[in-house]
């Protein structure tokens, strides 16, 4: 598959900070590409340069192999991290207004059904809940039936249920063959939705690749976590058990053997947690600090 969008060595500075410092990546058509990182990493600035909202200080952006042209805005849909809409508009009026901005539009009725807007289609946009609003903004991002969709932290501020409902929507869009570029600081979201990710920190990409492949590359398949109080005599612990944020962590290929070893060392297992390593573990390993600030 060829790259539909390519960023080459993007740089963007502000008076006291270099927000983006040489970021480059390629997004394959039909995939979901995630930019993962903490607040202030440079994800949104990178997105805005790709969207054409701000100009990079240096670097190139190629769309379908060529420099971005006039047709780019017709082919993309954007859901910003925070957006206000014009006041005193209903949901359908807002959708219709944005549809009028484009020559080619999606079928509005299908869009309304896809994003589950029927129940509040005639409601004032100012009176929508957080989840409803995000669904409307997603619908607006899809109103021109775009080839490429930018979603900037689309589920920030949503409750867990709304977030999961939104993930279903994004998965539907993926199935329709759209290319999605997504920024998020929720590692579970990136893991679930993205085919490829770049982890961004302090304006640079520190690692990129398929989420599963990255985790396999850096960790054993399972992590056992124990509260600090469970281990009375830490001196006897083996070197592969590390203390982090009040929890002991042990990455292991063989859970049974590790459990048996811990029991033999007199470790209390009542409050232990056994799970797969996450992207947050990866971020912590690579940067030395937690993903969520």
């Amino acid at each position, binding site marked *: 598959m060829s790259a539909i969008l390519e960023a080459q060595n993007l740089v963007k500075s502000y008076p006291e900070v270099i927000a983006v410092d040489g970021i480059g990546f390629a997004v394959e058509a039909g995939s979901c590409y995630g930019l993962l990182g903490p607040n202030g990493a440079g994800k949104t600035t990178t997105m805005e340069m790709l969207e054409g909202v701000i100009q990079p200080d240096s670097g190139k952006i190629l769309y379908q192999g060529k420099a971005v042209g006039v047709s780019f805005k*017709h082919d993309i849909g954007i859901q910003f991290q*925070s957006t*206000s809409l014009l006041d005193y508009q209903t949901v359908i009026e807002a959708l219709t207004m944005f549809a009028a901005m484009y020559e080619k539009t999606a079928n509005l009725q299908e869009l309304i059904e896809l994003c589950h807007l029927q129940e509040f289609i005639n409601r004032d946009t100012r009176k929508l809940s957080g989840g409803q609003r995000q669904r409307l903004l997603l619908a607006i991002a899809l109103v021109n039936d775009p080839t490429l969709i930018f979603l900037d932290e689309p589920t920030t501020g949503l409750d867990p249920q709304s977030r999961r409902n939104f993930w279903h929507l994004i998965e539907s869009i993926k199935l329709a063959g759209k290319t999605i570029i997504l920024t998020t600081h929720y590692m579970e979201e990136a893991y679930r939705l993205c085919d490829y990710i770049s982890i961004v920190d302090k304006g640079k990409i520190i690692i990129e690749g398929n989420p599963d492949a990255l985790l396999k590359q850096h960790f054993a398949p399972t992590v056992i976590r124990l509260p600090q109080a469970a281990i009375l005599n830490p001196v006897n612990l083996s070197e592969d058990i590390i203390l982090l944020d009040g929890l002991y962590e042990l990455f292991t290929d063989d859970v049974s053997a590790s459990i048996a070893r811990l029991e033999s060392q007199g470790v209390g297992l009542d409050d232990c947690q056994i799970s797969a390593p996450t992207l947050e573990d990866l971020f912590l390993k690579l940067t030395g600090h937690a993903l969520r600030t």
Partner: protein
Amino acid sequence: MNLTRMMALMRARFREFYRDKASWSWNLAMPILIIAGFAFIFSGDSKDLFKVAVLQSDSKADIAFLKTDYIRFIRVTELQDAITRVQRHQVDMLLDLTATPRYWVNEYSANGYMLEKLFRESFTMAPLNVQREVVSGKDIRYVDWVMPGVLAMNMLFSCLWGVGWVVVRYRKNGVLRRLQATPLTAFEFLSAQVIARLIIVTVVTLMVFAGADLVVDFTMRGSYLALFLVFFSGAACFTSMGLLVATRLKTEEVADGLLSLMSWPMMIMSGVWFSMEGTHPVAQFISQLFPLTHLVDASRRIMIDGAGITGVAFEIGLLCSLTLLLLFVSSKLFRWS
């Protein structure tokens, strides 16, 4: 009632206020400027009881009456215009000293009556062969005089805040950025704002005009078409002024301040509430720089004096030219974010 929560909210509100440096200048500077402005405008001798228009040739006739205290003598150059002012009670007497001395008084004017007696008394000692002319005309009610200015002022605020402040708010809360992400161009956006506001202002002004006429039955002697053209060109000019403010500002507070700075001097010095005649010459000069002044003057000439399109063509042309200039500058300066 929890005092702790209230105090916390009040502290947050105080911080919002004193950390906004721009807000300080508007809250402190504006009232001072207004007071200083009024003091400047009316920095003349305010003890005069009568106003006399004098049409005088270059020959300096020595007339004792012209040295009378507590009478303001206003030099005029157009005879017919001055006669009209006597009819309108805008001056109490017209004295023509160019050829055969003549004077005009309005038979309905009490001031004119008293002034004529003073005038005639003044040349019992120094005889003056002067011809008496009488005109008649009912005093224009203040409401008739002020009505064009009120309409114009209403239009000014609607255009400035309806476009200028709103676009700044759009920029601040991300609406502009969302629109920028579409194929919509800046020119399309700005044009839509201007046209929409012109239509709104036209409809609202028509409604206010009709409603006010029902209530006060004000004077309308001139052409409705001329009035429409004058007000429309004025609205276009004010809208483009609002656009100029909105080109790059990012906060409503600064926009509020700038718009107030634009509108308050105009409101005071454009002849909306009182005539600028007799005020300080510099104030009169400044007044002529304001588009509102020309709109008020032209609309007043139409409504009170019965002027037609040709009579206000200069003002229409001036307002349209200013509109084009401001639109051009705004289009060059405008930024989505």
